[in-house]
């Protein structure tokens, strides 16, 4: 039965709310409208305005009150409407949400799952196509995860909500309408693990979120040309499943990391650092990164030239084969 990623997340939210009364969903337009991407569609109808409610237009307020609610004993699942608008909540996220357990010496837990649609490729106006994941992954105390396929979207959301740690759940908005034949509910790998999405022998392409599909397409195209590309879906950006990633690179000897976010100090830098540290003797070539450029996100008409493409990935794979 074909299901979109949006539907899978919607079902995950509903199923979770069914099983646990303490889960609350709130944010801008999530109630009556069901969310600008319909991710929270019909949830207010089903669970009532007390558990699914619209907030004033105030991102810091959304996250700050979520913290208070979590301290009280609820399990909040708030939404930030778009990646670019998570910044007003930055302080509440990094100064409080990430730190409160640590500073209370383990006495306070904040089981918050903060949903943020992210990434580009949807022809949007400014500030609606950001990839801020590095800020969150760099902040100790947060868990950061991002599904790359429909089944993972369901399974990882269920797991995130059940966690007692604060989670930044990054939803690749350009993949919301991606369809797959999945019977829900479904349980995939635990969220802290990366997964080998496609096996190969010549090089490992490491991707997450919206770029997983692109990476798989690149592997398929590469196969036509005799390149055997292994694709690793990171799934978790904090923690990073070093074992799976490094294990793959030890087999292939080559690594290319792919993300939409700008190159400098992106997730690729961390992955490359770990690979060269742990698989130094196995490397046939330096770790390369197929990423966005070190510029602000471009206007809609130019984004296709800016975002990593199948060709950009394969060009870098070939480059590693040349060493």
């Amino acid at each position: 039965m074909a299901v979109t990623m949006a539907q899978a997340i919607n079902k995950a939210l509903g199923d979770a709310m069914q099983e646990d009364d303490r889960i609350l969903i709130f944010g801008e337009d999530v109630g009556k409208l069901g969310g600008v991407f319909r991710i929270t569609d019909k949830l207010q109808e089903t669970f009532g305005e007390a558990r699914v409610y619209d907030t004033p237009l105030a991102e810091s307020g959304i996250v700050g009150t979520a913290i208070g609610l979590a301290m009280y004993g609820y399990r909040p699942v708030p939404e930030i409407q778009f990646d670019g608008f998570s910044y007003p909540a930055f302080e509440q996220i990094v100064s409080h949400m990430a730190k409160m357990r640590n500073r209370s010496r383990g006495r306070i837990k904040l089981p918050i799952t903060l949903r943020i649609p992210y990434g580009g490729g949807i022809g949007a106006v400014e500030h609606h196509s950001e990839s801020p994941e590095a800020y969150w992954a760099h902040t100790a105390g947060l868990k950061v995860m991002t599904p790359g396929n429909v089944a993972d979207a369901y399974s990882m959301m269920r797991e995130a909500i059940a966690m007692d740690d604060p989670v930044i759940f990054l939803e690749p908005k350009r993949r919301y309408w991606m369809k797959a034949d999945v019977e829900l509910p479904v349980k995939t790998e635990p969220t802290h693990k990366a997964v080998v999405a496609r096996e190969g022998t010549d090089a490992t392409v490491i991707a997450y979120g919206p770029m997983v599909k692109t990476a798989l397409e690149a592997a398929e195209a590469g196969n036509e040309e005799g390149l055997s590309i292994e694709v690793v879906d990171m799934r978790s950006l904090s923690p990073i499943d070093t074992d799976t990633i490094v294990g793959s690179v030890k087999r292939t000897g080559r690594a290319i990391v792919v993300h939409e976010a700008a190159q400098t100090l992106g997730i690729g830098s961390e992955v490359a650092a770990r690979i060269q540290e742990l698989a130094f003797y196995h490397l046939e070539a330096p770790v390369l990164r197929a990423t966005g450029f070190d510029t602000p996100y471009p206007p809609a008409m130019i984004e296709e030239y800016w975002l990593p493409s199948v060709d950009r990935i394969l060009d870098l794979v070939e480059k590693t084969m040349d060493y």
Partner: protein
Amino acid sequence: MADIKDFKLPDLGEGLEEGEIVEWHIAVGDVIELNQTVASVETAKAVVDVPSPYAGKVVELVGDVGETLEVGTVFVRIEVGAGASSGGADSQTALDESAPGSGSTGLDADSEPQPLVGYGNREGGGRRRRRGGAEAQDAELGNGQITQATTPLAKPPVRKLAKDLGVDLASIASGSGPEGSITRGDVRKAAATGIVAGQMSAAATAAPPAPAAAPKREARGVVKSLVGAAEPAPRLVAAAAGEKPVPGFRGRYPGEVEQVRGIRKRIIEKMEHSRRDIPHALCATDADLTDLWALRKDLTAQAQADGFDVKITPFALIMRATVLALRRFPTLNARYDQQANEIHLLEPIHLGVAVDTDRGLIVPNIKDAHAKSTLQLAIETVELAAKCRDGSATPAELTGGTFTVDNYGFFGNDDGNPIINAPEVGILGISAIRERPWVHQGEIAVRRVARFQLAFDHRVCDGGEAGRFVTYMAELCESPTKILLHS
């Protein structure tokens, strides 16, 4: 024994490293209370009143008024338990005290900037310790874990050295570095014993391509994994008795270990499948190609006069003949679909040509060979072979063949037992064209003779058709004018 406490000049959180005693508020012998002001200490411009952390009798005051003391040095010594109570001191004074706490420091050019929010710069706190914390990290790095190395391990500079010296890392049985990795020493030793690897030298001469040169995918597929520039002919070195073996054909030498990957892996898969799943049968006919042979020079001259820089070889003509023969015996240009339980006799002839390259056997095919002239077949054969050798053949060129011709005569063989290129149903082997004694026009003569050897899928073709195919091939090639007739 009296309990004497040392009160060291505290770090007042001002980034203080020293303080000047402005005034003593107590004297030796005084019985003081907890928090009683002992001294006024100057830090930068303002003065801080320092309260005592102990109640008791003052035993010693260190430092005179006007003297500068370092933070952390003892400046008051108090015998505790002697006299005043230690707790609840002076609450009334504290309650009445509404003057602001004295001693807040200002900022001036001579003092360190005040931190406002903490202890300040603690120079004294930066103790050195014995080095060695990195050892723990080594343990965690998994350096101790020897991974089952399926590929040679070597750090990047060593790989480069190996390339530059022409040493194949796979040839070094075990490295002497961590995790069994190969060291510079290992490489130099290998190089010194005169082992030259053909495989690696190609890469050594090719610089990594600039990213700007990377071709667009839509334009053409680029199969860089097959990179292998035209390489120098392997140096033939004579080995002295007792020395390690020297490289032979294509730089291979006894003792080397080749990792099975890429082309070799595919070849293995295909050969195993073919031999395992296709019942091969053979039939052969020898043919007198003297006349065909004579044509080649003329045809070549013709081609070049027409502006085509190509040699028309007997093989080109044989390919033309093959096409004709396949038309007459279509079961040999077929596909057996086991699942659908159907045998498809294919309309187009995409003629596969076996090409011998350094990386292994590659079989590109000429699309729609039935619609191509001898000249075209000749040109395309040359082009395809070159592409296979330099690694730029496209997937389309490498797949979709319907029948293959295998010219092992190029190696000088008189016979062969070719393996069908699945999913085709037949492969025609062509031997060397050799001068032999032959019966020609009733008499023994010296003629140029070759053998056509057909291997066919006996499920799909019967001996009757296969045998006649190969005889017809001989017929066409013995009388090249027949090729012209049926084209």
